[in-house]
């Protein structure tokens, strides 16, 4: 090919090529840029030809990687040139040099529009191309109608129309409002009849984007897509120039099948049959051929067909055909095909239940984990991660650990994160989990994020059985010669907390523990030194009787670090030094760390964070979002620790010290206390994964789906002994307390959320269940539908509560007219910060809400929330988990404190007793843990009778301030469905409300009823306040009654 017509340009390019080194090249470029700059300054003498030549030179220089920070104006102005050659250069170089955010583009928006609506086809093409490549929002708003006109115009040539289609696609992506759905579905249907395959290819891309946002609007186009596919599969009427190595445009086939994946199903039996015929033909008829291009093209079509089959949930036979094909692909030598086999298997796991068949290929997949190509290894890792469950976790995790030894740096972090998550999710036993994490730290310490070792500490802290084992393991690792610093941290932490449990084992005396840990001190960084100091303090505290030598050694270290350069360490050293001279008090201050409140794994959150951004939402993702079971990650897996008793350990256990001593006691701010901060960052609320089974005692309450009949039975049971006389209607409304008060509008609304959801957008979580989870937890998801997720995080201090609502927009389009309103019950004062009108795409907005509790009540605040998305207005009313127990703080009383109080409250209405029937038959320990979740501190030993239980708590409200509440339960070992409940406090309303509240949790009643009793404006005092009976002679408490 001859050189281009511009001699000056060719000479310049030759000059650059002849430069021997970078320095010469730079000189030449600088000279040229200087030249261009001076010429542009004096524009008058510049001929159009010269201008054009300089602008091309600028692009060439820019392409070489040099900054070109002038001449943009001149380039853009060429767009307005009267003649084609200059105009062309203007358009092309502008779209290379500038991006959509450049202000210069605004100047030419009118010229561009004139070119688009003008009569010159060539200019139309130039303008459409530039707007299609770099058009931004402003172009979108001002040009979309004109572009649409060109697309559907019958007088335009295909060359213009295909550009108009893609230009419109760009404008649509910048602003979806520019395509009005109503009119467009018919036009799209017409456009899909297009005979010119170039235009059809472009139109199909536009169509994919449109259906990905709103498939419902384009049902009418579905049969057309099927017809296009049929036509191509049969190679009917396809011009030669649109076949590629004998295959009718593989790209158009792929795009069409992609579009079909956005339709939830295909109902029309005719279309469905025709489509399956095509798919069957593709699945069966794709052979491996020698020609690489032909092979690639036919497999491009085949893989898209596989994706469509998976989406359509074809008949079993076809699905197993697909799995068989994928099984074949993951074993072939050809790397691209093997890669795609692995990738598509992972996708298949997301949509269908093929885990068992895929497991048969496990060995093959593990081989790919050792492939020299990192792309293949990544796919294999993803697939192994996806297919892992309890049955193969051990094998897969061990394989990953082994691979960690040889994996390159680029993969180690991902690898260790995935191994850690799998170990946590599917551990057959917790000691194995500890083994895995310690191995991970040992092998790839640099790549093990802090989250991973925090997590193992949480598990060990919350599982007493595990503590000696973990401590022993940590001790073993310390014997290794070269230890990763993270291992030093975790070992020191574990041995500080639990080292004393090993005291009798060889090499584990406090002295020896100290010596081996102290060996590491000189080589570790500041953050580890801090942990080691805490460990020393703990060792000191556990050394009973005190060992003067050891004490001296440790104190010397504290003394030494008192003047350390790091403030944190300095402070620790000073404080530990002082504390360790306090003798017995040390044991209180440095007591074992309380259990961690259960929380979603930060690791899972982290793994999910790696979200991708794509032009169109992934069809497969859309689909799995629509499936309410949302079984993508863990939802249907058993809890980590499997066994029920163990799971109780993970329950939120609020130790009194956590609330009371936190501020007064600086030493509590040890590193582990930082862990909750790390993990408890607000973003966590976003996490879609919920570890519900472990945390929620209330989940044992039956779901609301109980039969009405059994409800009635229950009520009869319940109401009988209470002897409440009331009109039947009132009983129906308010069965639990049988009070005829339903005047409060809030009460009605609260109920409305449960049934009255006539919105077209349905929540994809169980709103009721989420509310109940949040009643015992302080952060989590409150509500979620396909567009928005509302998370909540709360902090409670006495009678004040600070909640933050997290509104997370899940879409790539904004949520509009967002409104939130709190409908507070009379006992709460609420203040909601202002709510922005719009939630931007993929953004999260935080809305703080302050709550003050005025007095005791079981009434619930309701959040009236609405927004619009597209054409749908969504309005939901959600109960907020601002419930009675949030204002309770457990307190431990000694017998000397308890009994005088109990006695003093022996006043009618202040102490109330009731025989409760129809109780869930729970063993006493379970009732105890239920009480703990309600913030009632169970005080063992106060009641001698083992069938009884006594608990104390403090209630906070503005009227009562801090008020002591005492609770006693006497169970009947013969009949677990009844018990006697006594509640006492210094306020009769509080006594009544608290008693009812506890009752609601004890009674086995469907949740709908139990959770939403509107509260009386004037609470009637419980008729059940019958004088106590003295039929329990053995009990010390009874005597006091």
């Amino acid at each position, binding site marked *: 090919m001859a050189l281009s017509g511009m001699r000056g340009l060719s000479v310049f390019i030759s000059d650059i090529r002849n430069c021997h080194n970078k320095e010469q090249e730079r000189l030449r470029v600088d000279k040229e840029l200087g030249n261009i700059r001076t010429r542009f300054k004096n524009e008058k003498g510049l001929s159009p030809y010269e201008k054009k030549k300089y602008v091309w030179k600028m692009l060439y220089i820019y392409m070489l990687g040099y900054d070109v920070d002038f001449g943009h104006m001149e380039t853009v102005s060429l767009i307005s040139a009267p003649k084609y050659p200059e105009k062309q250069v203007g358009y092309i170089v502008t779209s290379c040099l500038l991006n959509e955010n450049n202000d210069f583009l605004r100047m030419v928006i009118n010229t561009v529009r004139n070119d688009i609506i003008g009569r010159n086809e060539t200019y139309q093409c130039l303008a459409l191309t530039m707007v299609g490549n770099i058009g931004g929002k402003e172009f979108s708003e001002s040009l979309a109608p004109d572009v649409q006109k060109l697309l559907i115009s019958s007088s335009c040539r295909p060359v213009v129309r295909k550009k108009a289609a893609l230009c419109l696609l760009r404008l649509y*992506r910048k602003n979806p409002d520019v395509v009005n759905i109503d009119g467009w579905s018919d036009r799209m249907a017409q456009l899909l009849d297009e005979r010119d395959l170039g235009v059809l*290819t472009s139109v199909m891309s536009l169509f994919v984007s449109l259906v990905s946002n709103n498939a419902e609007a384009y049902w009418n186009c579905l049969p057309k897509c099927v017809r296009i596919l049929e036509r191509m599969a049969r190679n009917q009427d396809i011009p030669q120039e649109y076949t590629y190595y004998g295959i009718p445009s593989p790209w158009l086939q792929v795009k069409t099948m992609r579009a079909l994946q956005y339709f939830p199903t295909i109902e029309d039996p005719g279309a469905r049959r025709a489509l399956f015929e095509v798919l069957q033909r593709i699945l069966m008829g794709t052979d491996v051929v020698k020609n690489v291009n032909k092979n690639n093209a036919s497999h491009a079509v085949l893989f898209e067909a596989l994706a469509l089959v998976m989406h359509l949930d074809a008949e079993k036979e076809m699905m197993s055909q697909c799995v068989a094909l994928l099984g074949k692909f993951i074993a072939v030598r050809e790397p691209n095909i093997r890669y795609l086999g692995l990738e598509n298997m992972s996708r298949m796991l997301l949509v269908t239940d093929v885990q068992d068949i895929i497991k048969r290929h496990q060995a093959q997949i593990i081989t790919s984990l050792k492939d020299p190509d990192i792309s293949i290894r990544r796919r294999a890792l993803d697939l192994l991660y996806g297919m892992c469950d309890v049955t193969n976790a051990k094998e897969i995790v061990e394989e990953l650990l082994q691979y960690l030894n040889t994996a390159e740096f680029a993969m180690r972090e991902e690898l260790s994160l995935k191994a850690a998550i799998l170990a946590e999710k599917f551990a057959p036993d917790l000691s194995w989990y500890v083994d895995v994490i310690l191995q991970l730290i040992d092998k790839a310490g640099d790549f093990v994020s802090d989250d991973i070792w925090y997590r193992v500490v949480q598990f060990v802290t919350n599982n007493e059985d595990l503590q000696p084992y973990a401590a022993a393991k940590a001790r073993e690792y310390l014997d290794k010669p070269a230890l990763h610093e993270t291992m030093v941290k975790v070992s020191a932490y574990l041995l500080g907390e639990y080292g004393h449990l090993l005291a009798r084992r060889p090499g584990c005396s406090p002295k020896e523990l100290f010596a081996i840990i102290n060996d590491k001190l000189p080589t570790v960084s500041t953050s580890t030194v801090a942990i080691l100091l805490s460990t020393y303090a703990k060792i000191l505290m556990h050394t009973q009787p005190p060992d003067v030598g050891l004490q001296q050694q440790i104190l010397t270290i504290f003394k030494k670090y008192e003047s350390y350069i790091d403030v944190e360490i300095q402070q620790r050293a000073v404080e530990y030094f002082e504390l360790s001279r306090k003798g017995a008090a040390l044991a209180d201050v440095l007591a074992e760390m309380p259990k961690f409140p259960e929380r979603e794994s930060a690791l899972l959150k982290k793994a999910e964070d790696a979200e991708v951004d794509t032009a*169109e939402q992934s069809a497969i993702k859309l689909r799995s979002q629509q499936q309410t079971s949302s079984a993508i990650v863990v939802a249907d897996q058993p809890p980590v620790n499997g066994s029920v008793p163990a799971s109780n350990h993970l329950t939120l256990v609020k130790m009194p010290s956590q609330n009371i001593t936190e501020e007064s006691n600086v030493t509590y701010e040890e590193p582990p206390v930082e862990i909750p901060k790390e993990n408890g960052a607000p973003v966590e609320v976003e996490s879609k994964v919920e570890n519900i089974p472990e945390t929620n005692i209330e989940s044992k309450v039956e779901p609301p789906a109980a039969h009405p009949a059994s409800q009635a039975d229950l009520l009869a049971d319940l109401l009988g002994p209470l002897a409440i006389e009331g009109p039947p209607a009132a009983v129906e409304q308010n069965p639990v307390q049988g009070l005829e008060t339903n005047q409060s509008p809030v009460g009605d609304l609260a109920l409305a959320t449960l049934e009255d959801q006539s919105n077209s957008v349905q929540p994809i979580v169980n709103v009721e269940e989420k509310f109940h989870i949040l009643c015992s937890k302080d952060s989590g998801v409150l509500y979620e539908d396909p567009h928005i997720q509302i998370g909540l995080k709360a902090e409670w201090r006495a009678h004040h509560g600070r909640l933050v609502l997290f509104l997370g927009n899940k879409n790539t389009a904004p949520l509009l007219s967002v409104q939130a309103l709190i409908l507070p019950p009379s006992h709460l004062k609420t203040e909601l910060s202002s709510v922005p009108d719009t939630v931007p795409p993929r953004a999260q907005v935080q809305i703080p809400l302050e709550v003050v509790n005025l007095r005791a009540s079981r009434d619930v605040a309701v959040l009236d929330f609405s927004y619009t998305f597209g054409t749908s207005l969504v309005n939901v009313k959600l109960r907020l988990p601002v419930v009675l127990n949030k204002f309770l703080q457990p307190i431990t009383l000694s017998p000397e404190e308890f009994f005088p109080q109990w006695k003093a409250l022996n006043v009618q209405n202040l102490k109330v007793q009731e025989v409760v029937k129809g109780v869930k038959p729970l063993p006493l320990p379970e009732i105890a843990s239920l009480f703990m979740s309600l913030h009632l501190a169970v005080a063992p030993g106060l009641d001698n009778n083992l069938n009884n239980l006594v608990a104390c708590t403090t209630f906070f409200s503005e009227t009562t301030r801090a008020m002591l509440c005492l609770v006693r339960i006497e169970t009947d070992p013969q009949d677990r469905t009844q018990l006697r409940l006594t509640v006492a406090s210094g306020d009769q309303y509080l006594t009544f409300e608290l008693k009812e509240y506890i009752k609601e949790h004890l009674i086995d009643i469907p949740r709908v009823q139990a959770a939403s009793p509107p509260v009386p404006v004037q609470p009637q005092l419980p008729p059940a306040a019958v004088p106590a009976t003295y039929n329990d002679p053995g009990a010390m408490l009874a005597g006091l009654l």
Partner: protein
Amino acid sequence: MIRFILLQNRQGKTRLAKYYVPLEDSEKHKVEYEVHRLVVNRDPKFTNFVEFRTHKVIYRRYAGLFFSMCVDITDNELAYLECIHLFVEILDHFFSNVCELDLVFNFHKVYLILDEFILAGELQETSKRAIIERMGELEKLE
């Protein structure tokens, strides 16, 4: 969709760079540098796909030239791989037996051809004949 297309030689000299997403100049330079490093040392026996940040690069080597397309993670890899080949066939046809020098001295033509082939990050025309004819039309106008 295609995020960007790069033509680079083994030394990393860019012969064509077309972005369909708005990037700042510094970011473009970084991307070009990183993509080159990513593909240049890959064994010919490896896949033609390689993950790049949150997307993936589909690349193919022709003599000393690497053609790379950055696409969404959900896009059909093989379709884009053959899209690269089709582009090369078109160039080959247009320049009759294309070589790197043709692309260097006629880089502006390459941009023109690309604009007839891909628009808004999507495939616009897959007929070689249609594109070659269109180029003929345009050349007459100059």
